[in-house]
């Protein structure tokens, strides 16, 4: 039986800074998970990932990560690893959480 599809976003690391980035509706990259475009079907996910993979001059290692919508209908990370990637390390106030 096919596994139930769960909505996904495409995420990667910025080539120059290494920061986590998310693929957007305008086929560019945002530092903000909430601005990611959501793939609501397997087909859409594959299409988005293929489009993201053409942008090797901007990002490294794009992949699909599960997402859920918050009360404002914005995509949020699901797995704890993806949550950490939206924040930065927990031992110092560095990375995204510091607005850097």
């Amino acid at each position, binding site marked *: 039986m096919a596994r139930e599809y769960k909505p996904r976003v495409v995420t990667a690391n910025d*080539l120059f800074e*290494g920061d*986590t980035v998310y693929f957007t509706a305008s086929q560019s990259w945002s530092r903000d998970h909430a601005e990611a475009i959501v793939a609501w079907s397997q087909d859409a996910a594959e299409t988005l990932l293929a489009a993201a993979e053409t942008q090797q001059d901007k990002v490294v290692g794009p992949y699909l990560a599960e997402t859920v919508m918050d009360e404002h209908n914005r995509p949020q990370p699901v797995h*704890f690893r993806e949550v950490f990637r939206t924040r930065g390390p*927990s031992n110092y106030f560095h990375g*995204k959480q510091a607005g850097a």
Partner: protein
Amino acid sequence: MYIYNNFDEAFVRNRVAEFRDQVQRRIDGSLTEDEFKPLRLKNGLYLQLHAYMLRVAIPYGTLNSAQMRQLALIAERFDKGYGHFTTRQNIQFNWPRLKDVPEILDLLADVGMHAIQTSGNCIRNVTADHFAGAAADEIEDPRPTAELLRQWSTDHPEFQYLPRKFKIAITGSPNDRAVTKAHDIGLRMLRNEAGEPGYEVIVGGGLGRTPMVGKIVRAFLPKADLLPYLEAILQVYNVSGRRDNKYKARIKILVHETGLDEIKEQIEAAFERQKRDFAGPSADLVAEIEAAFAPPVFDNARSLAFEQAQADDAGFRAFVETNVAEHKNPAYGIVSVSLKPVGGTPGDATADQMRVLADLAERYGHDELRISHEQNVILPHVRKADIPALHQQLREAGLATANIGLVSDIIACPGMDYCALATARSIPVAQEISRRFDELKLERDIGPLKIKISGCINACGHHHVGHIGILGLDKAGRENYQITLGGDGTESAAIGERTGPGFDAEDLVPAIETIIETYLELREDASETFLAAYRRLGAEPFKQAIHGDRGGRARAA
């Protein structure tokens, strides 16, 4: 200390220039990531969760003050004001930008350092006893051998594409502080009955997914035979190591699957062949390297300042008890500076702290510093009479934590706070344990205890050889931690035993506390260490304590 000659200098500068060009070509789009990744890894540059990470080798853990100051400068200018010392005697910078890395490498080359072979399937940074050249129990300083191995292995054309990474550690003391039995090759210096120097050669140790204690393939190898013998081991591995399965590609699996007797025969046969082509380094080269590690000129003037300060100051006395080890010269001590303050990140030092350590090494320590695999900094040669003043200055810099070898002297890998491979976080666990035991004020009563934490199965935090080992895993989308007990990384090496199901993060520290309470209740007296008690009692009472009462505060997940 070894200073680069013209050849080393030109080699490292050329590598920086080559990498500068490769980075430029990646940025302008001429190189794809698939093409660039192996090139950046050859130069120690990883891409982690939040940023790039540059891993810089500190060969055999030895630094001088100028090098430490340069690391401080790099931390300040290209990182966020700190660096992370690792279990492989490397330093990692967590926030460099891609375009800045060639400049960082140039700054490193200015002080005779590099990031070559800190990644990839090659011979990695050779590690050594952090008390090398100073320890009272030492037979011989292992660092000339380690430097010889660095020169031999750097860019060795035959060993750039091994089946998997390859780690060598060396100790010159019978008390193994370099975890030699958990390395691909471990070397223990010794003398034969005729008093000639040589090595016991241990092969096939390793932690990670399949932990194994290394096996002795040669009980005594004459010193002069070292390089051809190591080439023989590497040749056997290079030809027969499993390239079909990444998880079975380390030499430990080859040794295990081939059998010790058969692998010994293969190594000895290869050694006989190899010796005809390559008898080893020239005597001049060996002498040149050995001269670079000549001990400093010690000042043997007697003074009672050290004894007096211990009588006067309980804080200093506590510091001496844990952080000062016996030096081969009775007028000297080996001072360990803990990078594990209460609630701190194990192994992290700020740029300011690095500069303080550099200044103190220059003033009191014959300009020498060491980085230990236990993520602390050592001043190996300090006159006992100077230790009170040194301690005072460490105290002012927040570096006088007196906990070496105690419960809060925890090894922790970066875990999922930084590492792309991690399955759970390590640092917050270490922070919580150290805070909790500080509250309990039990640290001194508990005595020697090594807690080691890894954030994934690769075991960078050496959890398998922790007296208490903690392994962080992803269990159905939650961070979950397995506890092992009874591991030992010394000459009596042992792999820790799993206690049962893992614990969720909120239940983990209470479980650790329960294990330690159980030890305190069951030990014969305060002289029986945790490890000794565990060996006498076995795992059962500890398992019972943490899992027996599932309604208790330490619930199993």
